[in-house]
């Protein structure tokens, strides 16, 4: 037995993660010890300041690292490089706007979460908790822990770290999914479905890890990459292992055929959680996929590429077709996110030189539109006979004529939808453009052709929602008056989040050069 060599831990490189984990722990302590009256406001401040501070830490690491300071540490298990830092920056921006939506309340003072997660839906206990004005403030530390897992996901250079980070990001999301204030049974069912399928996919992931370990006798990407080029035999086992690991990651981004959970979970989860989860999980998982493919798997590119082609094409087609036939706005957006997983995958399938930065730009553009669109969904509400605001009006027919009653909100929604559709002058257009150019450079012409056709078809249902909002007279729909959507006035935090998302979508669409330059100089992997 050799003597133990303690690994070198570069604490400075871990600052962003440590800030978020520390804030999460602080949040747990606040939930336990702070007086109930002030608990929520403390939690919100912590949850909003932590990503800001971490953003500062990432900027500091960026100035230290990009352009020569890249390194791996903890015995090669974690990597600090431009790609990881850029992905972390995107994640923290998503977290800032996402948490702002998460923390905001309706004018009546109710937030998006059940007053007491442990109470059975419809029970006297739940009613008592609601009357007493309890609030489930644990959602903020849960969201922070999930964010910490995502940040590690982008740096993971080792399958063990990747597995632990995968679980750290997933487990809090399962709980958050179950905590909706309204339609609680739906929300709990969504959580169960998410949990069972998520655990199933992590088990598949883990078996892939075992096979890759058997192949290369190591868990770090660099060693697996070396073993692949050294041709030690057992290539079949390595390819199967790699495909199983990719299955676990593709499940997280919701690509076909691993998308079964996406519509149900997006619909059942509290809408602010859906927005955060849709944007951030996808960004983190794509960052992990890119690092795995570019660092560990180039030796297997020939074997893995066909499978990724199939996944990308199936995601674009299935997502687009099923989005067209949905009648629920949250399910429509869910299927559209499946299609977007396919579009993002196009950028990196053939491992082109410019793939990573195109992927990151695409994810940034998609994230702004996603968080913004789901924030709008939280504001469009039904009213009961007494005129009280009740649950979200998610049926598409209820959105008819929204543009006449709340033009600003409907215009914001239209902007996000146009960005999803990839109309010029929005971020989505340049995201798609850079992704497709990168793929074409890598020689994946047929894939780009399918992607362009799919985005044309996809534009149909985004435009349909816009037409519904602006050009359909509400009188034409048969819904009784009270069921039609009424937009409520957004709280200050949601207002800020919406403005940031809309501004981000526009600025990236009109003047993307600084961001593209930044990504182009940074998005390289350290091996």
């Amino acid at each position, binding site marked *: 037995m050799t003597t133990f060599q303690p690994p070198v831990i570069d604490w400075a490189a871990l600052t962003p993660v440590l800030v978020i984990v520390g804030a999460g722990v602080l949040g747990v302590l606040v939930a336990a010890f702070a007086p109930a009256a002030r608990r929520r406001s403390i939690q919100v401040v912590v949850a909003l300041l932590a990503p800001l501070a971490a953003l500062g830490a990432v900027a500091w690491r960026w100035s230290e690292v990009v352009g020569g300071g890249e390194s791996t540490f903890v015995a090669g298990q974690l990597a600090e490089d431009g790609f990881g830092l850029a992905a972390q920056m995107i994640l923290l921006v998503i977290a800032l706007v996402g948490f702002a939506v998460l923390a905001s309340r309706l004018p009546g003072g109710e937030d998006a979460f059940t007053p007491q*997660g*442990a109470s*059975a*839906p*419809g*029970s006297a206990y739940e009613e008592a908790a609601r009357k007493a004005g309890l609030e489930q403030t644990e959602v903020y530390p849960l969201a922070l822990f999930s964010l910490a897992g995502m940040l590690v996901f982008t740096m993971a250079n080792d*399958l*063990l770290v990747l*597995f*632990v980070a995968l*679980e750290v990001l997933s*487990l809090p999301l*399962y*709980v958050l999914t*179950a905590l909706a204030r309204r*339609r*609680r*049974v*739906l929300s*709990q*069912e*969504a*959580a*169960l*479905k998410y*949990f*069972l399928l998520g*655990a*199933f996919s*992590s*088990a*598949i992931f*883990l*078996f892939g*890890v*075992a*096979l890759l*370990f*058997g192949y290369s*006798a*190591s*868990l770090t990407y660099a060693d697996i990459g070396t073993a692949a080029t050294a041709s030690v035999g057992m290539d079949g086992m390595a390819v199967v292992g790699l495909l199983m690991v990719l299955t676990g990651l593709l499940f997280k981004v919701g690509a076909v055929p691993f998308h079964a959970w996406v519509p*149900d979970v997006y*619909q*059942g989860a509290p809408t602010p959680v859906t927005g955060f989860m849709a944007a951030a999980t996808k960004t983190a998982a794509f960052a992990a996929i890119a690092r795995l493919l570019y660092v560990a798997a180039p030796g297997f590119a020939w074997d893995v590429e066909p499978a990724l082609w199939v996944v990308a094409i199936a995601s674009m087609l299935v997502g687009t077709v099923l989005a067209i036939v949905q009648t*629920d706005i949250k*399910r429509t957006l869910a299927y559209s996110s499946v299609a977007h997983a396919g579009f993002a995958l196009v950028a990196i399938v053939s491992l082109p030189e410019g793939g990573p930065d195109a992927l990151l730009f695409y994810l940034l553009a998609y994230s702004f539109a996603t968080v913004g669109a789901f924030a709008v969904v939280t504001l469009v509400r039904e009213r009961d006979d007494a005129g009280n605001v009740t649950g979200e009006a998610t049926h598409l027919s209820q959105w008819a004529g929204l543009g006449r009653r709340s033009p600003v909100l409907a215009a914001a929604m239209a902007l996000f939808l146009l960005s999803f559709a990839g109309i010029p002058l929005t971020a989505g257009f340049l995201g798609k453009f850079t992704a497709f150019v990168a793929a074409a450079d890598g020689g994946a012409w047929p894939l780009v052709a399918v992607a362009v056709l799919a985005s044309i078809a996809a534009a149909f249902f985004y435009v349909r929602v816009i037409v519904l909002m602006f050009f359909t007279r509400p009188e034409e729909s048969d819904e009784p008056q009270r069921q039609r959507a009424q937009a409520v006035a957004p709280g200050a935090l949601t207002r800020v989040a919406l403005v940031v998302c809309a501004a981000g979508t526009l600025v990236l669409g009109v003047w993307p050069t600084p961001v593209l330059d930044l990504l182009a100089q940074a998005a390289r992997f350290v091996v």
Partner: protein
Amino acid sequence: MSLMHYLVLSGILFTIGAVTVLVRRNAILAFMGVELMLNSCNLALVAFSRVHGTLTGQVMAFYVMVVAAAEVVVGLAIIVSIYRARRTVSVDEPSLLRN
């Protein structure tokens, strides 16, 4: 007992677990299937670790156990809360999520 024996056993356990998840309709049983899959991964990791003469795989197995325990906590919490709302944990019950 060669490496192959352990791998075949691990593969069999993994398959039994996967079939359990896909076929059984009781959420608790499906969840037990997942646990079986995780443990078959542990067996494969430890076997490979022994063959390669490194401790990495065994360390990974410990991490898997810890993560599985954390997963049990979250999973059972969700299942119990569903049971209290619906008095059943079947994943086949007429579901609100199927349109």
